[in-house]
């Protein structure tokens, strides 16, 4: 997926977790929102190549989220700060109901 000049992101297709998450996204009609999340998040990382993987996150108490993990080599406080920045961008671009279906993690 081309996201901005000079950067690219590819969602891994192979893993069972990603396939399960994709099926859930389709079932819930979240495809467009997912594309928005991935585009905003990869643009915010400032990395040349970002690996994206998806996981369905069930907390067994009734909440289901789609976890979007972006691998761009950040750790610790720097990763948390980047997640804060991504949430700021999502907040400006998305409705809270859609935004809250996703958990974006930078690693």
């Amino acid at each position, binding site marked *: 997926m081309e996201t901005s000049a000079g950067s690219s992101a590819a969602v891994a297709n192979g893993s069972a977790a990603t396939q399960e998450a994709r099926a859930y996204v389709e079932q819930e009609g979240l495809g467009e929102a997912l594309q928005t999340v991935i585009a905003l998040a990869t643009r915010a990382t400032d990395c040349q190549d970002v690996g994206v993987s998806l996981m369905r*996150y069930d*907390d067994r*108490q*009734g*909440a289901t*989220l789609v*976890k979007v993990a972006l691998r761009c080599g950040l*750790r*610790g*406080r720097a*990763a*948390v700060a980047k*997640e*804060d920045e991504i*949430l*700021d961008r999502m*907040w400006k671009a998305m409705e*809270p109901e859609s*935004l*809250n279906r996703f*958990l974006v*993690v930078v*690693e």
Partner: protein
Amino acid sequence: MRGNEFFEIAKHLLGNPPARWQEAAERTAASRIYYAAFIYSRDLMETWGCSFTENAVHTQVAEGLKASRELELVRIGKKISELHDERKRADYQTKAPEGFDFARLEALYEDVVRELQNRWAHLGEHARQAAMREIRARIASYQS
């Protein structure tokens, strides 16, 4: 007891565990850091007037905050969800490589503890009442 005692014991476990218990110590520490943040948040939200049900309280705390339409509360709710996800990995996915980023977990915990009280205190009365309605409605939606 207070939630921060779980954070302190997590730091102690990470200090210098015997080699044979290192993985168990790290998994336990990751789990305790979540509980430190969760208990702090639950107890504080109870002082705001929230009440939780025992079998759904973990979801109610995180999702309640995310329902508030106040960005900073949503941000804290997401950090609690992230810690919860790591807690499940620590306690249940014992066949997977562990590899916890403890600097990240500590940053998430510190943000939750520093910001939750602070952000709530800085909301105006009208915004606080609106947030409380949204939080309570979301909490109620997870009662079984």
